[in-house]
C-alpha cells in the first residue's frame, strides 16, 4: 500500500496523471453544470411551500457539500503529508484550501440570500449557517499559516498540524453549535428540511453536486500544477544562486 502511494506521490507521475484527466474534467464540468442549470432553472417545478426560491438550493447545497468535503480531503492529505512525507500531499492541501474557502463563502452568501425571503432576515444564527461561518474562519486561518512562513516545508508541516487539529474539532464545533441552537431556538425560524425532497428537485441537485465536484477537480489540477512548478522554480533559483 505504502509503495503504491509513493508511486502517486511522485510529482512527475502526478502531473502526468493530472494532465490525462484534465481535458475530461473540463468537459464533464461543463456538461454537468449546463445540464444541472437547465434542469434546475427550467424543468424542475417551484416548491409548493418555498416557491421559486427553492432554486437557490441548486447552487447553495452543492457549495455547502463541497465546503465540507474539501476540508476533509485537506485533512486526509495533510495527514498523509505528515506521516508518509508525501511530496505532493502538502501541496495538494494547500492548493485545495482557496477553492474550499470560495465554496464556503458561496454557501454562506447564497444561504443568506435564501434566508431573506424564507426567514425575513439575511442572517439568522441558525446552527448550519453558524457552523459554516466557523468553517470559513478555519479555512482563512489555514491559508494565513501558509502565507506567514517563509520556509515552505515548515509552512507545510505547521499547516498540516493546524488542519488536523481543526478536523478533530469540527465535529465538536458542529455538535456544540447544534446544542447552542436548540437552547436558543428563535420561535419563527422555519427549518430548511421540511417536506421530503421530490425527485424532480433531487436530480438537478445531484447533477449540480457532481458538477461542482468536477469543477473542483479541474481547478484543483490547475492549482496543484502551479504549486509543483512553483516549488521547482524555487529549487532552480536556489541552484542558480549556488552556481
Amino acid at each position, binding site marked *: 500500500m505504502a509503495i503504491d502511494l509513493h508511486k502517486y506521490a511522485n510529482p512527475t507521475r502526478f*502531473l*502526468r496523471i493530472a*494532465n490525462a484527466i484534465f481535458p475530461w474534467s473540463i468537459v464533464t464540468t461543463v456538461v454537468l453544470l449546463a445540464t444541472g442549470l437547465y434542469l434546475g432553472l427550467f424543468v424542475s417545478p417551484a416548491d409548493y411551500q418555498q*416557491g421559486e426560491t427553492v432554486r*437557490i438550493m441548486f447552487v*447553495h447545497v452543492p457549495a455547502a457539500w463541497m465546503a465540507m468535503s474539501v476540508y476533509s480531503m485537506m485533512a486526509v492529505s495533510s495527514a498523509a503529508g505528515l506521516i508518509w512525507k508525501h511530496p505532493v500531499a502538502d501541496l495538494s492541501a494547500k492548493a485545495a484550501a482557496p477553492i474550499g474557502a470560495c465554496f464556503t463563502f458561496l454557501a454562506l452568501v447564497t444561504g443568506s440570500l435564501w434566508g431573506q425571503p424564507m426567514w425575513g432576515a439575511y442572517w439568522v444564527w441558525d446552527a448550519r449557517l453558524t457552523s459554516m461561518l466557523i468553517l470559513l474562519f478555519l479555512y482563512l486561518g489555514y491559508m494565513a499559516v501558509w502565507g506567514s512562513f517563509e520556509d515552505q516545508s515548515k509552512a507545510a508541516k505547521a499547516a498540516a498540524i493546524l488542519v488536523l487539529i481543526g478536523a478533530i474539532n469540527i465535529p465538536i464545533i458542529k455538535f456544540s453549535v447544534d446544542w447552542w441552537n436548540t437552547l436558543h431556538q428563535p420561535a419563527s425560524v422555519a427549518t430548511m428540511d421540511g417536506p421530503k425532497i421530490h425527485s424532480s428537485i433531487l436530480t438537478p441537485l445531484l447533477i449540480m453536486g457532481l458538477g461542482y465536484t468536477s469543477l473542483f477537480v479541474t*481547478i484543483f489540477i490547475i492549482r496543484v500544477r*502551479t504549486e509543483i512548478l512553483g516549488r*521547482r522554480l524555487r529549487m532552480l533559483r536556489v*541552484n542558480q544562486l549556488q552556481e
Partner: protein
Amino acid sequence: MNEFFEMGGYGNFIWSSYGLSAGVLIFLVIISVRQLRQVERDLAPLEETRRSFRKRPVKEGATS
C-alpha cells in the same frame, strides 16, 4: 420570458445568488490559470539554462 426572470417575485434573490456563484467560481478559475501561466513563464528560462548546462533532458512533465 419576463416571468422567468422574475421568478415569482424572488428574482433578485435567485439571480443574485446564481450570479455570485458564477462570478466567484469564474474568478477563482481565472486567478488559478493566471498563477499557473506566471509560474510557467518564470520557469521557462531557468529550465533552458539548466538544460544547456547539464546537456541532458529535463524530466518529462515538469516542463509541459
